[in-house]
Each structure stands twice: as C-alpha cells, then as structure tokens.
C-alpha cells in the first residue's frame, strides 16, 4: 500500500527547485549604518517634539542667564531714584524695581545664580549619591543593610531643618546654601543607583560576562555603569529644578542669597511688598522659574522615553 503510493507521486529532488527573485547572498548583511546607543537615544529625542522644544527652551534660558545681564545695557546693581518702580517699557524691558534697578539685568543675573545652584546642587548630590549607592549596591549584604539604614534616618530629617541649621551655622551665601541643599539631597540618588545596580547585577548578561572571564572593572564600567547611566541622567534633569525650587523657597523666607546678589527666588520675594501695585515685578522672575521647571520636567520625561529601551513601543 505504502510503496504503491510513493510510486504514484513525483520524485522531488533539490535540483528541481530554483530560487526566484531573491538570493541568499547578503541576507545576513546589515544594510543600515550601525548606530550607538547614544545616537539612537538622540534620534528618539529629536522625534519627540515636546521634549525637543523643551531642550531648545532650556538652551535659550541658559544662554540668556549667561549673557542676558549685559544685553539691556544697564547694570544689575546701579540704583537710580529717578526711575523707581517703572513699568516695562522700551528702555527697561522688564521695568525697574523699588530702588530703580533695571529688572531685565537683574532677572538674568539672578537666573545665573539660580541655574548655578541647580546645576551645582545636582552635580554634587549625583556624585555623592552614585558613589554611596554604587558601593551599597555592589557589595550588598551587611554593608548594604547598614548603609541603607543610615539613609533611612537621614531622609526622615525634615529637609528644611537641615537647611536652616546649616545656614545659621555657616551664614548666608551661595556656598552654605549649596552645602545645606546637598547635605541630605543626595539620598534619593543613592537609593536609585543602589536599586538599579542590585537589579543589573543579577541579570543574565552579567553572569555571562563573569563566565567569559570578565574582570570586575570591566563589569562595573561596561555593564553596571552603562545600565545605570540613563537612569542617572533622567534623575539629574528632575533634580536640577528641584534645587532651583528649593533655592527660590529659601530665598523667599530670607535664608537664601543676600543682596546685592540676587536669584529668582530673591527677586520674587522682594516683589512681594509691591505686589498689589507693581505685579510685573513678580511676574518676570516667576515666569522664568516656571519656564525652567517646565522645560526640565518635559525634557526629563522625553529623556526617560528616549533612554530606556524597555519602554519602547
């Protein structure tokens, strides 16, 4: 029965088949140019219109805080009693304050202090946080346990207390302020880095790297750090506005930057007495704080999407 059937069917041999239309040559070849992780992230960020707009706005704000002070042609500290509390006009673009100082210069000058605080604060707390969290995560076990208990205690100390005590002790000024803000500000970053390292450490590719004979240095730099970096970058973009906010708040209750230097928070605070009559004095510094916060937040959201391959749709 079976042999009968095979007889009936046609014998099929490989030489009877011909490949039509496509050849196997080059099927394995990569046609697109190879791009690195960062190029890919950059491409993604550019596609995200909101985040890219936020980036442009941020660059604009940074350039203005660096150079805006000199654009209006007025000094930020020269007072002129003839032009006190002038509404914005052609010569004083943002108006003048109650001592007749040009607000355009003052807003950008203050912005420089605010931005500096944000950037320095975030840099310092990232640095400390990465080392602390990295050590805790990498060694794990007892070390990790003790280090995390310390963080637990530090984070329950009300942040404002720390700042007030430090500024009472060291006096007021930019550096005591940064010290005060970073004193417990690094804890969040340390937690984040630790969590990420703990997670990455257990991944199969790390085990594979160990099995292939990679040394600890290579594992730390190639696997642990690179996989944590994107999360750190995103966290920095959220940290910077947090520090700017904190600085504004402290300047507002009189613990921040001291005259003649100024910051957005200090400017907003100074405008408080005149709010009912000269609301523009609050408007400009408040607008700048809001724009900075907004652009950092939106950029942070965009970066998170761009940098995290797991979130890709």
């Amino acid at each position, binding site marked *: 029965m079976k042999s009968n059937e095979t007889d009936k069917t046609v014998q099929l041999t490989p030489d009877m088949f011909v490949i039509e239309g496509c050849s196997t040559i080059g099927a394995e070849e990569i046609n697109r140019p190879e791009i690195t992780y960062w190029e890919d992230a950059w491409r993604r960020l550019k596609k995200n219109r909101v985040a890219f707009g936020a980036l442009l706005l941020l660059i604009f704000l940074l350039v203005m805080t660096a150079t805006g002070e000199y654009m209006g042609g007025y000094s930020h500290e020269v007072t002129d009693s003839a032009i006190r509390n002038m509404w914005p006009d052609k010569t004083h673009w943002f108006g003048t304050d109650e001592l007749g100082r040009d607000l355009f210069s003052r807003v950008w000058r203050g912005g420089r202090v605010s931005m500096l605080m944000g950037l320095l604060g975030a840099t310092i707390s990232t640095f400390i946080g990465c080392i602390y969290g990295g050590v805790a995560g990498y060694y794990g076990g007892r070390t990790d346990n003790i280090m995390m208990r310390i963080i637990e205690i530090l984070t329950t100390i*009300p942040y404002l207390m720390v700042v007030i005590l430090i500024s009472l002790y060291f006096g007021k000024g930019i550096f005591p302020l940064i010290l005060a803000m970073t004193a417990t500000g690094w804890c969040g970053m340390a937690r984040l880095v630790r969590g990420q390292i703990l997670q990455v450490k257990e991944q199969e590719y790390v085990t594979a790297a160990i099995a292939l004979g990679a040394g600890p240095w290579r594992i730390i730099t190639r696997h642990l750090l690179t996989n944590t970096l994107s999360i750190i970058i995103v966290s920095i973009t959220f940290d910077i506005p947090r520090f700017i906010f904190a600085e504004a*708040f402290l300047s507002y209750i009189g613990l921040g930057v001291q005259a003649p230097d100024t910051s957005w928070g200090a400017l907003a605070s100074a405008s408080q007495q005149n709010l009912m009559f000269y609301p523009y004095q*609050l408007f400009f510094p408040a607008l700048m704080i809001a*724009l900075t*916060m907004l652009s950092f937040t*939106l950029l942070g959201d965009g970066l998170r999407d761009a940098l995290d391959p797991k979130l890709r749709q």
Partner: protein
Amino acid sequence: MLRYILKRVGIMFLTLFIIITMTFFIIRAVPGDPLSSMARNLPEQVKINFYAKYGLDQPLFVQYLKFMKNLFMLDLGESLVYPGRSVAENIKRFSPVSARLGIQAVIFGFTTGVSFGILAAFKRNKWPDYVVMFLAILGVSIPGFVTASLLQYYFTVKIPLLPTTGWGTTGHTILPTIALAFGSVAAYARYMRANVLDVLHQDYILTARAKGVPRFSLIWRHVIRNAILPVITILGPQIAGIFIGSFVIEKIFSIPGFGFNYVSAIQNRDFSMILGQTIFFAALYITALLVVDILYGLVDPRIRISGKR
C-alpha cells in the same frame, strides 16, 4: 505587622534623638551672642545674670543633659527675645491654626487631585484630560509662593471676594488652603491618572467585564479601589511638602500659625525658640511619615505578609 511597626517606631525614636542632639549642638555652636540681637551695651553684671538665668554659663555638656531632662518633662525653655514667654506655650498657641490649615490642605489636595486623575484617565485624550494635565504641569512648575501671590492678587484685589490676609473666619482659610494644596493636587492627579490607566489594562478588569459587572460597580470597586492604593505611597512626601509649604503660605497670608512664628524666630535669632520648635516640627513630621507608612501596610496585604517593602 506588629514587629514591623515596632521596628519603625524604634527607628523613629533613634532619628528623633539624633535630630535633637544635632540641633542642640549646632544651635549652641552658631557664631554670635544670643544677646547681640537685643540691646547693644549691657553692663557686665547684666550679661552674667542673663547667662546664669538661661544656664548658658555652664559647660556645654551639662547644658545638654539639663535640656534633655527638661525635654522629657515637655519643658522646652523660655524665649530669649521675649522673656517670660515659654516655648511650649508658644507652640500650643500657634499650632492649632497651622493644623487646621494643613489638614484642610491635605484633604482638599487628595480629593481634588485623585478625582482629577480619575477624570483624566477616563476621558483620555479628550479635552478634560488635556485640561487636567495642563493644570498638573502648572502645579509642578510654579512655586507655591507664586501661586499664593497670584491667588491673593486676583481674589482680593481684582475680584474682592475673600479677605486678603489674617485669620478668623472660614473665608480666611480658603485661599491659603488652595495655595498650600496646589502642588499636591498636581502630583496626585498625575499619579492617579497613570494608575487608573494601568489598572484598566489588567486582566481582572476584563474578567469583571466578562462577568457582566455593572459599569458603576466596575469603576468603583475594581478600578478605583485598586488604582488608589499606590497613591498612599506619595501621601507621605506630599504631607511633608505641605508642612514645609506652610512656612511661606502663612507668611504671605499673615496667618498667625506655627510656620509664621518659626520664620520670625529665625529672623529674630531667638535660639531657644528655634531649638524647641525645630524639635516639635521634626517630631510631628516623622510621626506623620510613620503613620502614612503604617497605613499603607494596613491597606496593602502584600506588605503585611512580607513585613517590609
């Protein structure tokens, strides 16, 4: 669960002890004489009497022990700037005002934020969603003192509906409450929206729908109940934010509360007042965080079983 609570309470007391000790020594180490903020040229004997009265002539460690002993009996000492005014009395007098404002702000922030979040999630990509998300972005990018100033400007100057500053009637509490809660409304709304969207994609919602659970009961019992749970985790930081925010808000609206008093103590360099109020504030703050954590443990069975997060 009981072990977890005991452990947390233990850590709380340890933290509090560290804060008290740290605050005490930092305040004592602050450069400058407590007398310098008062009259300039006092006779030598007056100064000596002053130091003796407040025990400032004794060695630092003796002062510390004495302070701790008094603290145990809830005696926080006396103001350096206003003689005869006890720190504890001061706290007792000013706290209820702040407490009312704070509780109102927490309740307002939570209910409004959560309802906005739910609304935005169910009307996803329609105008209510955009409005809520726009408000949420405003809420996180505008500092509390700006919101407060704007509210004050519009609702008391432009449209005189409510009293500008001060304290007394319910009308006085409306603007400060909104200003205080504005940031947290945004945070709750964002978080709640994400949670609801997340829950809507869960399998149990599909199951419930397949069983024919009515729409209202589906939303209420299956979606909202599950989505609201994680929101409790951000309740702690939000309450902390309201604690700190009250300093500025009370100053702007001239509300005779704890924060207002605290800021003026700092400005007057009234060291014993700062010390006492710092301790009180820290204790309250830590307790609030602890209560939120325990609350979360009680409502979320997953934490109850494992004993820790």
